[in-house]
C-alpha cells in the first residue's frame, strides 16, 4: 500500500511482516495492554459490552471472508450461527466429556460439510446476483425449520465450558476468552487474505472471468470460501450458545443475518479491520440510542417507540453507508490516516514510489 511519507518496503521480510512500522507496533502494543488492563479499570457493564463486540466480531469476520474477500452473497449466515449454537447445546445436554473442545471442533467441521453442499449450486458457476441472493435466505429458514421439527425450540446450556480444571465463568473470564478468540480469528482472517486462497478469492470477487483465465479454479475457491466462512460462523454460534447459556430459534431469524451483513457493510467490505469496527458499531448502536433517549429525558410512553426507532436507525444507517460511503468506516479511517500521513500536502504523488 502506498503510504505518504517516504516509507518504502525494501526487504521481503518487511513485505511479509504483519505489523510493519514502529508506529503500528507501538499502537498495537498499547491496544493489547489496554485490553488486558480493561477489567481492572472498567465496570462489568463495559466489560460485557466489549465481550459482546468480540463475539459479534467473530461472526462478522467469518462473513467477511465470504462476502468481503470472495464476493459471494449469503443472507443465510444466521442459519450457521444457529447450527453451531444448537450443536453445542445438544452436545452439552448429552454431557460430553469436554464440552468446550467438543463444541469448538465439531460444529466447525460438521457445518463445513454442509457449507460445501449448500454452495454447490452457487459454485457451479454462472448464477447471477438476484438469483444468488434469493437462494440464500432459505438456509436460515431451513435450519430453523429443522431445529423446530426436532421438537425443541430452545435449549439451555447449563454447564459452563471447562478446559481441564479451568472453568470459564464470570464476566472477566468471558471477556478474556472471547477477546482472545476474536483476536485469533482476526489474525486468521488477515493471514487468509494474504494467502494463496485469499488472493484467489479477491481475484474472483473483482472479476470472475479474468480470475478463471489466469488459472484459478473458480468453483473450488468459491466452495473453499463457503467452507471457511460457514465453519467459522458455526464457531461463533457455539460461543454464542455458551455465553448466553440459552439458545432459542427466535434468536436466529432473518434479522440476525441482516445484522451481520450490516456489520461488514458499515465497517467496510473486504477489510478485517472493517469487520471488527462494524461489529462494534452495530453492537453498540442500540445502547447508544438508549443512552441518548435517557439523556433527553423523553416523555412517558417513549419505550413503545424505542424498539422501532432502533430498528429504523439501523436500516437508515445501513442505507446511508451503502449509498454514500461504500467503503464503510474503514474508508473514513483511511481518509483520516492519509490526511495525517500526507500533511501538509493534500494529495498523494500520482506515481507511487516503487
Amino acid at each position, binding site marked *: 500500500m502506498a503510504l505518504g511519507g517516504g516509507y518504502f518496503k525494501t526487504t521481503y521480510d518487511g513485505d511479509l511482516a504483519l505489523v510493519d512500522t514502529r508506529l503500528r507496533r507501538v499502537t498495537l502494543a498499547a491496544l493489547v495492554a489496554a485490553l488486558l488492563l480493561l477489567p481492572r479499570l472498567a465496570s462489568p457493564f463495559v466489560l460485557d459490552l466489549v465481550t459482546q463486540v468480540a463475539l459479534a466480531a467473530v461472526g462478522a469476520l467469518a462473513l467477511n471472508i465470504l462476502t468481503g474477500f470472495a464476493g459471494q*452473497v449469503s443472507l443465510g449466515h444466521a442459519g450457521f450461527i444457529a447450527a453451531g449454537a444448537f450443536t453445542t447445546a445438544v452436545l452439552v445436554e448429552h454431557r460430553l466429556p469436554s464440552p468446550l473442545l467438543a463444541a469448538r471442533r465439531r460444529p466447525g467441521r460438521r457445518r463445513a460439510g454442509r457449507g460445501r453442499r449448500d454452495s454447490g449450486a452457487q459454485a457451479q458457476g*454462472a448464477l447471477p446476483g438476484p438469483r444468488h441472493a434469493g437462494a440464500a435466505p*432459505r438456509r436460515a429458514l431451513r435450519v430453523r*425449520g429443522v431445529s423446530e421439527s426436532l421438537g425443541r425450540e430452545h435449549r439451555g446450556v447449563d454447564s459452563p465450558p471447562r478446559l481441564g480444571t479451568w472453568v470459564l465463568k464470570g464476566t472477566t473470564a468471558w471477556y478474556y476468552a472471547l477477546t482472545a478468540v476474536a483476536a485469533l480469528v482476526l489474525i486468521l482472517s488477515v493471514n487468509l487474505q494474504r494467502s494463496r486462497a485469499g488472493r484467489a478469492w479477491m481475484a474472483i470477487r473483482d472479476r470472475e472471468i479474468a480470475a478463471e483465465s489466469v488459472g484459478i479454479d473458480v468453483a473450488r475457491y468459491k466452495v473453499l470460501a463457503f467452507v471457511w466462512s460457514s465453519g467459522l460462523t458455526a464457531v461463533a454460534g457455539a460461543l454464542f450458545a455458551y455465553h448466553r447459556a440459552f439458545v432459542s430459534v427466535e434468536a436466529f431469524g432473518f434479522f440476525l443475518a441482516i445484522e451481520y451483513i450490516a456489520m461488514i457493510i458499515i465497517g467496510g467490505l473486504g477489510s478485517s479491520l472493517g469487520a471488527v469496527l462494524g461489529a462494534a458499531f452495530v453492537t453498540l448502536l442500540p445502547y447508544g440510542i438508549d443512552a441518548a433517549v435517557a439523556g433527553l429525558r423523553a416523555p412517558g410512553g417513549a419505550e413503545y417507540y424505542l*424498539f*422501532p426507532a432502533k430498528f429504523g436507525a439501523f*436500516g437508515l444507517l*445501513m442505507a446511508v453507508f*451503502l449509498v454514500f460511503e461504500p467503503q464503510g468506516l474503514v474508508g473514513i479511517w483511511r481518509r483520516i490516516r492519509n490526511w495525517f500521513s500526507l500533511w501538509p500536502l493534500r494529495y498523494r504523488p500520482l506515481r507511487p514510489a516503487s
Partner: protein
Amino acid sequence: MPGAPALSVAAAVVLSALSGFVIYRLLMRPMAGHPIFAAVLVTVTLGILLRAAIVLVYTDRIRHPLPLLGLANPPRRLPGGAVVSTFDLLTVGVAALFLVALFAFLRLSPLGIQMRAAGEKALLAAQRGINFQLLFALSWALAGFAGALAGVLYANNVRLDPSLGVLGLKAFAVALVGGLDSLGGVIPGALIVAAVEVLSVRYGDPLLADVSPFLCLLAMLLVRPWGLFGTKEELERV
C-alpha cells in the same frame, strides 16, 4: 361513509405506485454501477425502514380490518364441494386480472415492449433512444402497485400485522421456481409452492410449512437454476 374502504384501497394502491417512483429515484438510481449485491441490500434496508416507519406511525398490533369496517367475508361453495372465503375468490380474480393486464402491457403496448428491451440490455436500449431510467422507475411503480394490492387482499383475508413483509420472501421463491424472466411461469410456480405448503401442513409437520417454499426453491435451484420457464443462461463470454 359509504365507499370509504374502496376509496382508501385506491389511495393506498396509487400511493404505493408513487412511492415506487420515489424509491427508484432516491435509493436505487445512486446504486447504478455498484455491485448488484449492494443494490439488493439497499432494498433490504428499505424493508427495515418501512417496517419501522409503519410501527412508529400506526401500530405494532395485529389487526383484523374487515370486522372493523363492518364487512363480512362469507364462505362460498364452489362446484365440486370446495368451500373458500369471498376474499379468497377475490384474490384469485385480482391476481388473474393483474397477470393478464401485465401480459398485455408487456406484449402489446410500446411502453411494455420498451420495458422488455431495457430489461434485456439497458445499454443497447438506451442507444435506441429508450428512456430506460423512466422504465426502471415505472417497473418500481408497478411492483409497488402490485405489492400494495397483495397487501390489501391478504390483510383483509387473513390479518394485518407489521411482519407481513415476510410474505415477500415467499414471493421470491415463487418467482424463482417459475423462472425469473417468465411471466407465465408465475402461475405454475405459485401453484407448486402453494401446493407443497398446503400439503406439508396437511400431511406433515405444520412447522415444516414455514420452510416448504424454500425447500421448493432449493430443489429447483439444484435441478434447473433458471426456473421452470425461465431462459437458460448462456455461459458468460469475454
